[in-house]
């Protein structure tokens, strides 16, 4: 008998917070809004910790049915929650990082208009994300999936008076819709063949099936379609275009939704569906190829971006690519490991970037920064830790997770490994480029800029009469308030030590993280025979482990070397010779321009899809069907009625004798008819 954990409370608490702030927050003072938001998200975190502390005494997976939702014939979907090692990790990451970012947001958003709205949306996001993570069937997961999309849309377009923000919100929503289309079809296929969407029942139904090695079958179709959904949510090729634009949202939103949690939902979903993918090698290959291409592609774009948040956005896309490489080669626990460490260091990077932006008065262009090292030391040191973590320098968190992915990728195919390694080098290069451009050299921005980013947005009317508690408005570059620094420090500590729970055997660790997730990824894998390394790897150290360790150490060395090489190159180009990059860029000419314009992908999509779609909608749907068919039918019937009455109304001449004539004529007709009938 497993104890009742009241799992349902974890998502519902933030929902209550969202409702309170959303319905009544307008009247609350800022302190009360912040208090409500922090209370409910903090309570969810506390509850998640409580669940984690009692986790070892549970029989997993632990399922709690709250209420029946849909019951139609044999099909049943419930409001039920599912807890195993995988959802526990996600639960802790979402509530933990989410709570920290809530704290940070109080400081960051203090002077913004719509303070209550922001926290209401943020809590709403937590609700949907936790629903997604805890759902015990695909349908409830889909609710969370759509819900986080909604929250993302609302928060990207938070400054809705700004055209670009509103457009970015729409873009994110529409691109995600394309992915959701694939996800939905996958769900329909599952219902058709298994009659249920509950995880355990679907996976039990699949368990006896063998791997589809011969060709593409049902599971391959489901897997590829699920990947389409994941590509939308997790910003993979070809649906990644929304994520860089999503940076229009407030920076804490970029940190929470578009770096740490929501965009990893696709990885979580693929990992959750690992039973399907393990039996569909072709789908796995698709996942790995998409991940590999995205990782490389986005990383190269990151080199040329000058907006500090855009660099981080492309970096996020690229790191998500790593996670999909891991999923695609069957190293699901490595993917989740990287997901977790990425949530720490990328969340931290965004928060620190927000702190930088805050310090220099809303400037996001790195060319206008520089020399901030001594002026905002807390931000500098925390961001340094995060930068080293993402660059894969030991012993920071990113090193362990990235290294594990690269090692597992190599076991699958050296191509994945090589591109991944090159991407690691590029990642290290653009991250240190950001680091040097922001914190070193001379300050290049306009002196004494004191405008916060909202000032450009014309929101001054919305924030009248708000006391500035930490002297926001004063001139000059200043360190962020303590409310913002504390989350930075906590995340920095996590970015530093977060990788130590997954130290691989080759480095003398025992990879506790993978062992912890083991029951999730290996319990059901036994049925799928011999997918590359999936099963044998997890069983612990085989007889060839000694030789394997030596090779693994060499590969670790190579990837660390790649990271250091990136550092050195960035140091050379952006610290020693700041003028050199421009010369190189000029020398590269067309190639540089292509990368700078993000390979013209947005333009390509605009030409291929957006413009034809808009033109088609305008010509066929709007002018053609709406105006020429629907409107025309209405207009023409109205015109017809008018014409008929126009001709008929002349009978109403007002002339008495003509009326009498009509009466007489009518009578004559009736009489003639009667006579005719009588003579027949």
């Amino acid at each position, binding site marked *: 008998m497993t104890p009742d954990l009241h799992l349902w409370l974890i998502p519902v608490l933030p929902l209550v917070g969202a409702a309170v702030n959303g319905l009544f927050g307008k009247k609350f003072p800022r302190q009360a809004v912040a208090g409500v938001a922090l209370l409910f998200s903090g309570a969810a975190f506390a509850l998640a910790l409580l669940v984690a502390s009692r986790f070892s005494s549970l029989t997993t997976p632990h399922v709690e049915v709250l209420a029946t939702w849909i019951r139609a014939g044999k099909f049943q979907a419930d409001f039920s929650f599912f807890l195993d090692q995988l959802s526990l990790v996600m639960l802790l990451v979402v509530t933990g990082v989410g709570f920290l970012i809530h704290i940070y947001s109080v400081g960051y958003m203090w002077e913004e208009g719509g303070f209550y709205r922001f926290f209401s949306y943020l809590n709403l996001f937590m609700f949907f994300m936790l629903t997604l993570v805890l759902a015990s069937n695909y349908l409830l997961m889909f609710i969370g999936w759509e819900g986080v999309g909604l929250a993302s849309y609302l928060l990207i377009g938070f400054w809705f008076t700004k055209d670009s923000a509103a457009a970015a919100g729409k873009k994110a929503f529409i691109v995600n819709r394309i992915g959701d289309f694939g996800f939905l079809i996958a769900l329909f296929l599952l219902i058709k063949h298994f009659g249920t969407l509950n995880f355990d029942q679907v996976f039990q139904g699949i368990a006896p099936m063998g791997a589809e090695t011969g060709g593409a079958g049902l599971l391959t179709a489901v897997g590829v379609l699920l990947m389409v959904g994941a590509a939308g949510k997790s910003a993979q090729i070809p649906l990644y275009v929304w994520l860089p634009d999503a940076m229009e949202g407030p920076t804490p939103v970029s940190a929470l939704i578009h770096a740490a949690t929501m965009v990893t939902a696709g990885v979580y979903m693929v990992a959750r569906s690992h039973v399907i993918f393990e039996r569909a090698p072709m789908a796995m290959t698709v996942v790995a190829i998409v991940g590999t291409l995205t990782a490389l592609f986005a990383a190269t774009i990151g080199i040329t971006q000058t907006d500090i948040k855009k660099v981080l956005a492309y970096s996020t896309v690229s790191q998500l690519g790593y996670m999909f490489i891991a999923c695609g080669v069957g190293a699901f626990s490595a993917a989740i490991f990287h997901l977790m460490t990425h949530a720490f260091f990328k969340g931290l990077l965004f928060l620190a970037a927000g702190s930088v932006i805050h310090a220099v008065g809303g400037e996001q262009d790195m060319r206008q920064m520089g020399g901030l090292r001594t002026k905002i030391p807390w931000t500098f040191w925390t961001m340094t830790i995060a930068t080293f973590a993402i660059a894969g320098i030991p012993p920071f968190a990113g090193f362990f997770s990235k290294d594990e992915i690269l090692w597992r990728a190599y076991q699958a195919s050296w191509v994945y490994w090589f591109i991944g390694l090159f991407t690691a080098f590029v990642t290290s290069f653009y991250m240190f480029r950001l680091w040097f451009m922001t914190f070193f050299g001379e300050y290049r921005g306009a002196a004494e800029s004191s405008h916060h980013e909202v000032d450009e947005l014309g929101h001054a009317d919305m924030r009248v009469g708000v006391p500035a508690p930490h002297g926001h408005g004063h001139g000059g570059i200043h360190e962020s308030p303590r409310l913002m620094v504390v989350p930075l420090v906590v995340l920095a500590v996590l970015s530093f030590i977060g990788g130590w729970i997954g130290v691989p055997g080759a480095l003398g660790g025992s990879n506790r993280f993978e062992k912890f997730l083991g029951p999730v990824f290996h319990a059901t894998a036994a049925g799928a025979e011999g997918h590359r390394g999936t099963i044998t790897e997890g069983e612990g150290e085989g007889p060839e482990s000694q030789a394997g360790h030596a090779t693994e150490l060499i590969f670790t060395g190579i990837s660390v070397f790649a990271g250091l090489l990136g550092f050195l190159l960035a140091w050379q180009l952006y610290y020693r010779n700041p003028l050199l990059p421009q010369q190189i860029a000029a020398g590269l000419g067309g190639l540089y321009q292509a990368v700078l314009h993000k390979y013209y992908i947005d333009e390509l999509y605009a030409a291929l899809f957006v413009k034809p779609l808009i033109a088609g909608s305008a010509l066929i749907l709007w002018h053609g069907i709406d105006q020429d068919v629907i409107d025309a039918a209405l207009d023409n019937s109205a015109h017809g009625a008018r014409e008929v009455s126009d001709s008929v109304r002349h009978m*109403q001449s007002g002339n*008495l004798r003509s009326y009498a004539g009509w009466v007489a004529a009518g009578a004559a007709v009736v009489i003639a008819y009667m006579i005719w009938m009588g003579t027949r």
Partner: protein
Amino acid sequence: MVPISYYLVLSGILFACGVTGFLIKRNIISIFMSIELMLNGVNLSFVAFAAQWHALSGQIFVFFVMVVAAAEAAVGLAIIIAVYRTRETLNVDQVDLLKL
């Protein structure tokens, strides 16, 4: 005995005269008189049938028609006088306000 068809033909002729007068005359008084002619044409056929079938109801109907015609004459003449006082004409073609 005169056959009933004679009466009916005469009644039809009278009614047709009334209709024709109603349609072609412009003076309200003449139109009014045409109406009386139509009524009396109908009265004639009533009486003829009553005599033919030895049924009183036809003759009683004639009295009804006469009473109604008298009442109509009273109301109609009053209206004609009112129209003449306001419009100073008895030509129906000029009394055509009741149109679009």
